C-alpha cells in the first residue's frame, strides 16, 4: 500500500460519490452523417461478390443495357415493353439479397414518380399512356440498377475504356472513387472521435463539424501529394492503359448476350412495322 496516503488524507475529489449522469444531448446530425458515410463506403467497397462467373464481360453488358434502354424508350408497341419487363424481372430475381432492397426502392420510386407526373393523362381519359410510361421507367431504371449493383466500380470504369472514353477521364474517375473511399474513412474516424469526446451536453459539437471538414481537406491534400509522388516513382508518363481484353472466359456469355440483343432488335423492328 502506498504509504504517502492514509484514509484520512485522501483528496476530497476522490471521496466524492460517482453519481455523475451525463445530460442528454442531441447528436442526430452526427449519427446520421456517420451512417450515411458508412453506407456509402460499404457500397464503394463492394467487390462484386454477387457477380456470376458466367456473366458476360462488363463492357458487353454495358453496351447491351444501353441498347435495351434505347429500344425500350423508343418502343411505341406496349408488347415490346412487356417483353423487356419480363427480362428485367427475371434478372432481378437473381440479384443478391443485400442489394435487392435498394434495387426495389429506386425502381419503384422512379415508376411511382412517372405515374404521378402522368396523372393528368389518367384524368383526361388516357390511362394507357400513364401505364406505358411508368412501365418504361420501371424497366429502364431496373436494368441500370441491376448492372450498377452487381458490378464493382473498378470494372465499370475499366469497361468505359472499351467504349472509347478518353483515358484521362477514366483516370480522373478512378482517382476520385479511390479518394472518396479513403477520405470517407478519415471522416468516419474523426466523427467517431468527436462522438466519443462529446460526454454530456456539448454545445461546441456543431462548430466541431467544421473541424471535421478541415481535417478531411488537409488529409486530401496529403493524399494527392502522395499519389503524385507515387506516380512519378512508377514513371507515369500520362497514358493510362486499361486492359482491352474482353476475356476468353466471357466468350460464351458474350455470344449469348449478343444473340439476345439481336433477337430483341429483330422483335423491335418487327413490332414497329419496319420489317
Amino acid at each position: 500500500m502506498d504509504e504517502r496516503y492514509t484514509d484520512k488524507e485522501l483528496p476530497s475529489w476522490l471521496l466524492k460519490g460517482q453519481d455523475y449522469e451525463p445530460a442528454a444531448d442531441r447528436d442526430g446530425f452526427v449519427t446520421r452523417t456517420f451512417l450515411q458515410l458508412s453506407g456509402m463506403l460499404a457500397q464503394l467497397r463492394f467487390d462484386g461478390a454477387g457477380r456470376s462467373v458466367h456473366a458476360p464481360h462488363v463492357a458487353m453488358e454495358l453496351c447491351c443495357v444501353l441498347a435495351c434502354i434505347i429500344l425500350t424508350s423508343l418502343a411505341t408497341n406496349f408488347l415490346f415493353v412487356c417483353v423487356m419487363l419480363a427480362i428485367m424481372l427475371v434478372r432481378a430475381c437473381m440479384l443478391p439479397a443485400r442489394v435487392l432492397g435498394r434495387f426495389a426502392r429506386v425502381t419503384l420510386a422512379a415508376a411511382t414518380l412517372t405515374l404521378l407526373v402522368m396523372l393528368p393523362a389518367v384524368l383526361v381519359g388516357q390511362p394507357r399512356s400513364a401505364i406505358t410510361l411508368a412501365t418504361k421507367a420501371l424497366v429502364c431504371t431496373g436494368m441500370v440498377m441491376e448492372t450498377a449493383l452487381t458490378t464493382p466500380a473498378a470494372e465499370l470504369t475499366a469497361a468505359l475504356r472499351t467504349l472509347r472514353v478518353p483515358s484521362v477521364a477514366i483516370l480522373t474517375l478512378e482517382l476520385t472513387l479511390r479518394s472518396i473511399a479513403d477520405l470517407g474513412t478519415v471522416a468516419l474516424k474523426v466523427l467517431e472521435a468527436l462522438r466519443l469526446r462529446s460526454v454530456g451536453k456539448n454545445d461546441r459539437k456543431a462548430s466541431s463539424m467544421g473541424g471535421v471538414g478541415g481535417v478531411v481537406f488537409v488529409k486530401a491534400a496529403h493524399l494527392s501529394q502522395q499519389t503524385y509522388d507515387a506516380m512519378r516513382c512508377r514513371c507515369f508518363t500520362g497514358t493510362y492503359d486499361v486492359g482491352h481484353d474482353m476475356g476468353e472466359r466471357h466468350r460464351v456469355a458474350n455470344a449469348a448476350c449478343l444473340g439476345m440483343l439481336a433477337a430483341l432488335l429483330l422483335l423491335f423492328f418487327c413490332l414497329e412495322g419496319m420489317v
Partner: protein
Amino acid sequence: MHIPENYLSPQTCGVFGVAMVPILVHATRKVRAEVPAEKIPLIGVAAAFSFLSMMFNIPIPGGTTGHAVCGTLIAILFGPWAAVLAVSAALVIQALLFGDGGVLALGANCFNIAFVLPMVGFGVYSWVRDRTSNDLLAAGVGSYVGLNAAALCTAIEFGIQPMLFHDAAGQALYCPYPLSVSVPAMMLGHLTMWGAAEVLFTVGILAFLKNAAPSFGIETGTATSKSTIVPAVILLAVLALATPLGLIAEGDAWGEWGAEDLAQMVGYEPAGFSGWEWGAIMPDYTLAGLPDFVAYILSAVIGIALLVLVFRLIGLGRRTQPDFG
C-alpha cells in the same frame, strides 16, 4: 373459380373485403412468428406454383373449364397461414395484371381460394395423416376436399345474388343464376375433373420436392441451399413453358363469362354488369399482336418473377433477432 368483376354486388364484395383484413393481418403475424426468414423467399416460389397451376385450364364436357390451385400444397410445405399469404399474392397479381378475377371481387376470391381452400385442405390433411401416416395420401385427400370446399363457397356466393339483389321486375342485378343452378354447376366439375387435377398437381409436386428438394418446407428445419432451390426452379420453368397447354381448352369457366355471352345465355344483361371494370395490362394473359401461346408464357414469367421478388423482399424485411443465449 375466379369471380369476375360485377358478378357479385358491391355489398357482397365489401363484406368479404372487410373479412379478409383481419385474416391477412393474422396470417402475417403467424408467418413472422413461425416461418424462418430464410424460408420466406421459398414461399414466393410456392406461390409461383399456385399461380402456374391456376393458368392450366382443364375442360369438362359442357364447354366449361376449371383449374387446380395447389393451396393445400403450400399449406403442407409452409403452414396454412403462409398459404393464405402466398395464394392471396398470386390472386392479387392475377387480378391487377391479367384481369383474371375482378379487382372489386378480390376479397371474395381471396376468402374462397386463399383462406377456405388451404385451411380446410390442411385440416383434412392433418387428420388423415395422423390416422394413416401416409403423407401423399393425406395430401391428395386434403387437396381434393379443400378445393371442393372453396368451390362450394364460390357457388353459394354466386347463388345468393339473384335472391338478394334484383330489380322490380325480378331480374338479377348481378349473377343471374340461383343456388339451384350455381351449386350443381360449380360442384360437378370440381368433384370430378378439377378435383382430380388438384390431387394430381399437389401429390405430384409434393412427391417431386420430397425426392429432389427435401429441405424445401419448414418442417425439415434444415437451411436452404442451392440443392433446395435449383430443382424447384427447374420445375417452375418446365411448368411455365407448359402453360400454353391451358389454351387447348376452349370455353370459359362457369361463372367467368363476358357480359355479351351471359346476355345470350339468360336473355338479358344484368344491370350491375355496366359497372366499373379494371383495365388489366395483359387481360386473360394475352397481348394484342402476340400469339396467345407466347403471351401465356410471357405472363407466366412475369407472374413468377413478381411473386418471387415480393416474397424475397418480405424476407429481407424480417430482421433477425440476435441470440444472446
